[in-house]
């Protein structure tokens, strides 16, 4: 005798209800029902057909039932007569739960239990249907959402910079186009970071990336909600200020510069950089290409950079001409390098004590096809900017090395001074170039002095010390060029592995040096002596200057009064003299 038990029903419900799909629910239901009721056969019938069977093959049961679940008994080979009991399930009669038992029909209590089980099965199937529909919907929704997200992400990637989260040039130009069409004054700020490259070179790219992200944050904080900041690439940013005239934009640009000038905490240390800003404004309804407007801001920024770091320049139409000239210069420089339009002149360094020629300084000259000479001051900054200085510098090094080797055949003590630009110094291949030059022309390293300007060295003193140490390891000598024109930190000067100070000619502005002039130079010479540095005074143009410098104890001198820079073939005789 079986016993009615709500616990059994609860367990039945739990087992059936936890099924994931209708088929496994009906399977579990008829298995458990036949076990609880101790029937030999269990089955679920749908539309009068056996869908799942337990204890007998489905087709055999189908045949035995003849499509009628109400059959009272069935007979099967190898078995006693089976007493059948069934109960409908589902609110709209989805099917029948059937059990069949040998020997004894179900008692009224057991029939009640079977009814309850069938009801339970019906409820469970309804739930499963709802749940699986919901699950399907959820899966579909999730798929759609994922697709949308992927699309947005891909759009975002093209239109937003992944490093800073700021819009890219593409998106910036789109927004800009929309704004300028509105007719209200719109200002574009073109921001270029100063000394970013030094950070990237000395602290690594990860630090550089970190710094850019911080810069982007600072820019964001300086903007009004409607303004747009963008990263154009590298260390260039742009800002769109809507409804803002050029005059109103300048203080914003200055605030931005101030914000960027504050130290950035990068990898546990404070990093200092700066920014230069160019501003271009569109303030009438005339159509303007957003790219042009951004280009104008770029031109203004270039001018700001030329004027020194941390400057703001508002675009003016004539700047276009300058920019155009710059473009021409760049292509001309490339051609000059390719066609061998550069040549070297040499200016001797004279030992003041006895007037002997101690060495020569190689000076690059550009002779244009029309025969005109271009002064280094007119093309070196551009070459520095576009990177051609690397190629030019390498050419200078080899050319001067070859010439020095030729001279040293007759004047074995002759020294060679070569100027090195900031970009060359940071070029990791530069030391190798120097070594190549030394071996190629069999020059003793001590016969070569590399001149670096004070501003190059002081831009990144720590990095400079590292690179100069590498060069010193080759055995060459190092000189600080144009000393006194930058802002040398004396503490760094002490630590720089240099051998020579070249005192800028600005220290002897008068043909007859005044007492003040001499006092300053004396101080420099004495300091150099204390640091065991050789001194060279540049720009000696009069006899009075020469005599004064000799008296002060300067080691070497250079200047028109001693000898003008000259082509090597013309220089041979005075040097020999």
């Amino acid at each position, binding site marked *: 005798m079986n016993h009615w*038990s709500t616990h059994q029903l609860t367990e039945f419900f739990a087992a059936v209800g936890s099924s994931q799909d209708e088929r496994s629910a009906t399977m579990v239901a008829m298995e458990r029902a036949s*076990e609880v009721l*101790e029937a*030999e056969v269990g089955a679920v019938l749908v539309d009068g057909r056996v869908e799942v069977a337990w204890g*007998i093959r489905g087709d055999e049961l189908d045949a035995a039932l003849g499509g009628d679940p109400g059959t009272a008994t069935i007979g099967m080979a190898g078995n006693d007569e089976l007493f059948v009991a069934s109960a409908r399930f589902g609110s709209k009669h989805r099917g029948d739960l059937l059990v069949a038992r040998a020997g004894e029909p179900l008692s009224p209590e057991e029939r009640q239990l079977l009814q309850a089980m069938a009801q339970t099965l019906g409820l469970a199937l309804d739930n499963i249907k709802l749940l699986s529909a919901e699950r399907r919907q959820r899966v579909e929704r999730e798929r759609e959402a994922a697709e949308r997200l992927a699309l947005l992400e891909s759009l975002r990637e093209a239109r937003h910079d992944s490093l800073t989260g700021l819009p890219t040039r593409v998106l910036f130009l789109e927004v800009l186009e929309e704004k300028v069409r509105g007719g209200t004054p719109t200002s574009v700020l073109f921001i270029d970071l100063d000394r970013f490259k030094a950070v990237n070179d000395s602290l690594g790219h990860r630090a550089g990336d970190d710094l850019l992200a911080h810069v982007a944050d600072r820019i964001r904080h300086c903007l009004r909600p409607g303004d747009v900041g963008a990263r154009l690439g590298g260390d260039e940013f742009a800002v769109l200020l809507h409804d803002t005239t050029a005059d109103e934009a300048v203080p914003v640009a200055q605030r931005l510069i101030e914000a960027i000038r504050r130290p950035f905490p990068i990898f546990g240390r404070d990093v200092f950089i700066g920014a230069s800003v160019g501003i271009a404004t569109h303030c009438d309804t005339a159509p303007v290409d957003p790219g042009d407007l951004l280009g104008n801001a770029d031109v203004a920024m270039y001018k700001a950079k030329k004027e020194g770091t941390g400057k703001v320049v508002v675009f003016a139409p004539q700047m276009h001409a300058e920019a155009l000239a710059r473009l021409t210069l760049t292509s001309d420089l490339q051609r000059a390098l390719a066609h061998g339009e550069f040549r070297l002149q040499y200016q001797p360094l004279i030992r003041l004590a006895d007037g002997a020629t101690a060495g020569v300084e190689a000076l690059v000259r550009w002779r244009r096809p029309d025969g005109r000479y271009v002064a280094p001051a007119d093309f070196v900054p551009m070459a520095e900017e576009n990177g051609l200085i690397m190629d030019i510098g390498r050419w200078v090094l080899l050319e001067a090395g070859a010439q020095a080797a030729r001279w040293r055949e007759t004047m074995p003590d002759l020294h060679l001074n070569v100027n090195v630009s900031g970009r060359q110094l940071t070029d990791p291949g530069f030391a190798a170039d120097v070594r190549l030059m030394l071996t190629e022309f069999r020059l003793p390293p001590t016969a070569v002095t590399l001149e670096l300007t004070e501003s190059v060295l002081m831009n990144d003193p720590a990095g400079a010390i590292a690179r100069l140490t590498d060069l010193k390891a080759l055995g060459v000598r190092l000189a600080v060029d144009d000393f006194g024109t930058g802002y040398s930190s004396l503490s760094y000067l002490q630590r720089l592995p240099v051998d020579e100070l070249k005192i800028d000619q600005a220290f002897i502005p008068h043909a007859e040096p005044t007492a003040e002039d001499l006092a300053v130079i004396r101080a420099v010479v004495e300091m150099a002596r204390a640091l065991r540095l050789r001194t060279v005074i540049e720009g000696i143009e009069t006899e009075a200057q020469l005599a004064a410098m000799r008296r002060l104890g300067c080691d070497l001198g250079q200047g028109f009064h001693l000898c003008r820079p000259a082509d090597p073939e013309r220089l041979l005789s005075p040097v020999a003299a």
Partner: protein
Amino acid sequence: MTRWFGAGHSTLTDPAAAGAAAAEAAFEGREPVLAFVFCSVGYHVPEMLDEVRTRVGPETVIVGCTTSGQMTTGQAGGDGVAVVALGGEGFDVRTRIARSVTPRLREAGAEIAGCLDEVSSPHRVLLMMADGLTGNQHEMVRGAFSVVGAAAPLVGGCAGDDLTYVRTYQFYGGRDGVEILTDVAMGIALGSDAPLGVGMAHGWRKQGDAMVVTRSRDGRVFELDGEPALDVLLRRLGLDESALDDMAAFRDRIFLHPLGMSRRSGEDIRVIHGADPSDRSVLCLADVPQGALTWFMESDHDALLDGARESAAQALDGLDGHQALGLLAFDCAGRRTVLGDEGVQQEIGVIGKELGDVPYGGFYTNGEIARLRGSLGMHHFTLVTLALA
């Protein structure tokens, strides 16, 4: 050739000699269709099986396992080898084996039941023998039932290792070689021209009031009538908490008080083999479904012996008046423990008396299988018998 059933037993310690002696006693020079080899743990089994193999025919099926004791006509004991065999006309035997069954008992049960289809005799039974340490063996019976269905009974027992619960072995093969395996289930479809009778009885009776299993999972019972099961057990047995200090003694004590579950065919026994004081649960050897109506069971010597008589009588009854040829017995190892050595001798005396001069043999199991009515077929503390005519 006439049909025959034989059982031989040896307690010799030399494995080869014991195998030879038991096989010779069982076969008496005849070629068996099916030979069962049951042996206690500790024998060098390959040597023992080699001696059995040399005495069978090319078609003979050899199956068997390690046990918690063997019985053969007139003898029973813990150590030794028993060989039980049948042969002659009208027997048809097919086998199937499933390996690495622990994680897939249901599937394994369905797999081994497949061999029954290959037997088309008028009387059929699926004998099942499996590793006795694989967990919820009810799942294996469920699996077999899903294939065999109601048309044929399931009978069998699970291999033992003298109640040490470490590892059991199963034997499967024939004259050319016998595999010695573990973690397998074997199906032996036995077809016969003459009727087969199944008996199943235990001799336990209800003690005290009924209880509903209000919370359980598989064989672990957490609550009876909404009260922690261990508390109920201690109270019913008149024990206090200190009884848990010596778990071995506690286990011996509760061994005699299994749970019984009400079935249409009587009470199904669940051995309680331990308790977990941390969650106040009691541990049974087979599943105790939540919602079941249950009693603590008790027995006495005479009732257990009467269970043996009852099982044998049921099996003979199933032969529809045909003369019995022999009887296979799957007796619970727990019954043997409770009865003791003397009681076991009395038990086989009772069986022998019921059978007259009909030979019998079998082993003490770690779980008995008998599905006759309904779809449940895993038992404990029970003697399952199969009579062949």
